[in-house]
């Protein structure tokens, strides 16, 4: 006897089986119960033993009830006090909690944006968020690239879902919302929600949702779509896709309705019940986010957003899959090529530096030679001047000597005359003297 497949959906899986390796995998019938239908159970058991991990990022202005919503969703009081509006910039604070339900352990990380929307200039508000998401991707990428790695025990910190809290103005999205969501939509699964939606009336809400959706579409913002490719959940998911963005109300306070205590917010005019689907979309959010699509959110993060990040990062570093002739590179070739390129670069740099030094030495030598030359020239000039001075002095000396000589000559001549005159006059003087004496 034969047992055929009960699942008819596997046509595309047949295709994939044919695609692998280009060889066809032929279908063979089984003549009994082999038992590999336990494979999903084996897989599930392993993952239950391993525990699960989920990371939610809450983006929204201060006071939109992000923390309260998390508390309500997970039915726990997570730590933290309400934040003030006076933060200098946008900061991200993440906390990790270990939750357990039945035999399922969940490591839940909630990341809150603190101070979002509080600044006067919000141009850079999205940056810390993008940086945070990228940092988690980078950490995973680094682990994945290590030589000795432990991926299966790695604590995955990548953001699996981003709940974007829209202020319940009832009119439209703020430009900060559009800018931020546009920057995030290729990096994370965005689920937009209308916060504190008990401030909006039913009719306004419908219009608000339509406005938001059309603005997202016209601005090309890709929000997360609940997957419709698996028949088991296709219907509920496509139905829910039509209710986005979810209008939620959060509350950890309980109010007695009938004979039950329910989570609610009490107003003079009535009580908003969180888990009443007529009052708000909280139940829808919980259903989609946690009960139906948590695993898909993780998968999308890994296979789409992370792969995109990784691809961009590797391309940035110059990695390619094929060489210029479109032949595929093997890993070895790629690394070796990279390494050779890199070594070549280093050597070039070294050479450049050496050359630069040689150049500098040359220049400095020339400079110093120039200085030396100048110095010598200066002193040559001085020497020349000095020579001239000396010459002048010599001339003067000579002149003086000449004068002196002339004078001497004159003097000698005069003295000679005088002595001659004296001799002659001497006798006269003598005569006179003699006469006087007579």
């Amino acid at each position, binding site marked *: 006897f034969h047992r055929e*497949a009960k699942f008819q959906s596997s046509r595309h*899986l047949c295709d994939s089986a044919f695609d692998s390796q280009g060889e066809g*995998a032929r279908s*063979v019938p089984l003549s009994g119960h082999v038992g590999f239908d336990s*494979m999903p159970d084996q897989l*599930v058991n392993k993952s239950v033993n391993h525990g699960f991990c989920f990371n939610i990022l809450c983006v929204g202005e201060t006071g939109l009830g992000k923390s309260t919503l998390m508390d309500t969703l997970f039915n726990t009081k997570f730590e933290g006090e309400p934040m003030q509006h006076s933060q200098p910039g946008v900061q991200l604070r993440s906390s990790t909690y270990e939750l357990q339900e039945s*035999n399922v352990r969940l490591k839940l990380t909630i990341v809150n944006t603190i101070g979002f929307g509080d600044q006067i200039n919000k141009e850079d508000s999205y940056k810390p968020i993008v940086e945070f998401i990228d940092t988690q991707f980078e950490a995973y990428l680094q682990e994945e690239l290590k*030589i000795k790695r432990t991926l299966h025990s790695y604590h995955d910190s990548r953001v699996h879902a981003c709940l974007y809290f829209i202020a319940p103005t009832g009119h439209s999205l703020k430009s900060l919302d559009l800018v931020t969501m546009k920057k995030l939509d290729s990096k994370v699964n965005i689920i937009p929600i209308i916060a504190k939606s008990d401030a909006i009336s039913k009719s306004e809400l419908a219009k608000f949702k339509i406005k938001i959706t059309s603005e997202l579409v016209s601005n090309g913002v890709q929000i997360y779509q609940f997957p419709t490719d698996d028949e088991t959940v296709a219907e509920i998911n496509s139905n829910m896709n039509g209710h986005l963005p979810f209008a939620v109300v959060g509350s950890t306070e309980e109010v007695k309705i009938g004979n039950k205590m329910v989570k609610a917010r009490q107003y003079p005019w009535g009580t908003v019940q969180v888990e009443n689907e007529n009052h708000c979309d909280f139940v829808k959010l919980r259903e989609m986010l946690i009960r*139906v699509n948590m695993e898909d959110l993780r*998968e999308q993060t890994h296979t789409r957003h992370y792969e995109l990040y990784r691809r961009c990062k590797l391309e940035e570093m110059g990695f390619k899959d094929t060489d210029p002739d479109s032949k595929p590179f093997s890993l070895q070739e790629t690394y070796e090529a990279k390494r050779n390129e890199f070594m070549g670069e280093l050597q070039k740099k070294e050479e450049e530096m050496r050359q630069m030094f040689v150049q500098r030495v040359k220049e400095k030598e020339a400079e110093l030679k120039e200085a030396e030359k100048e110095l010598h020239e200066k002193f040559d000039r001085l020497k020349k001047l000095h020579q001239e001075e000396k010459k002048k002095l010599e001339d003067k000396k000579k002149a003086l000597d000449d004068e002196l000589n002339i004078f001497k000559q004159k003097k000698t001549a005069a003295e000679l005359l005088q002595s001659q005159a004296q001799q002659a006059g001497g006798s006269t003087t003598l005569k006179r003297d003699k006469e006087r004496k007579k």
Partner: protein
Amino acid sequence: HSVHFKLLIGVFQQRNLEGYVGFANLPNQVYRKSVKRGFEFTLMVVGESGLGKSTLINSLFLTDLYSKEYPGPSQRIKKTVQVEQSKVLVKEGGVQLTLTIVDTPGFGDAVDNSNCWQPVINYIDSKCEDFLNAESRVNRRQMPDNRVHCCLYFIAPSGHGLKPLDIEFMKRLHDKVNIIPLIAKADTMTPEECQHFKKQIMKEIQEHKIKIYEFPDTEEDEDNKLIRKIKERMPLAVVGSNVVVEVNGRKVRGRQYPWGVAEVENGEHCDFTVLRNMLIRTHMQDLKDVTNNVHYENYRSRKLAAVTCNGVDGTKNKGQLTKSPLAQMEEERREHVMKMKKMESEMEQVFEMKVKEKKQKLKDSEAELERRHEQMKRNLEAQYKELEEKRRQFEEEKVNWEAQQRLLEQQKLDVTMEKNKKKGKIF
């Protein structure tokens, strides 16, 4: 199935409790997605021809893997060891499995069997290489997992112990793939012979430090008891059959002998059911996980370490394996940059020093010249002064003499005048 069912009930019970969040439904989500994806498994069978490998596969998977259109390797005579794979698609209970059976015809059949394990090693490594390359691409798509998840090694039922070839093969492959040794054609031994044989084999395996696949302990004690029981029966002695015979009104797979029927699925006849349960029903996923987390990672880290340490002197600290090759290159780059900086600063220092020296020399030379110039200037000035003095003296003398001369002249003139007066020449 039972586990899954348990979970579902648990979920429903929980749902009725207050404050049920719902992430307990995660396992169901995982279940659903895995069924959609389908499963793949690659099983390798190694052993001499005639040990019933193909028959065992057919018995395990209750199918005719090798048929007239797709004859098994045993029908063909090989001169050298070949490695051949057959891929089939089987479905059961909504679960789809792509099963690849890798056969090694010719293994151990030659007279000289040295290196007959090499084609096997090459095959396993090449599948790891494919996966590594696919995983390392920039554009990654769905990566089919064709790595060998399990290797069933068939031991001939000699009753004595392992052959040298058995030991050699297992020692070389135990770091590359999960090995499950099987005693083939177990219906040729009595239970006592089989028991003895098993003990002997396990002893030798331990002696040679061969690492065969180990069943992991689970959280539940019950399962652990079962696992311990299985471990006691290792290596599993199996019988396979393509034929269904009738025994006491039941249709069973078995081998018909004149003295009775050796039933494949009878736990008292052989360990086939143990093997099937373990290989397919309980540990198939674990075999894949160990392949992925241990054997493949070993291959990968060996490959990448070879790439990065290529060209670098062997004295490099190989403990750097915690980094990726890129990080390694980064580090090398940084080291090189530091080295260059040091070299640069050294060269700079030498340069500065030389410049200082030269400048100092220049300064000294300048000072010297300056000094000499000063000296000459002073010399000159002194001479000037001297000259000045001389001139002054001369001038003074001249003036005096001239004054004297004038006086004399005057005197002379006076005398002459007196004379002339006396002579009456003047009135």
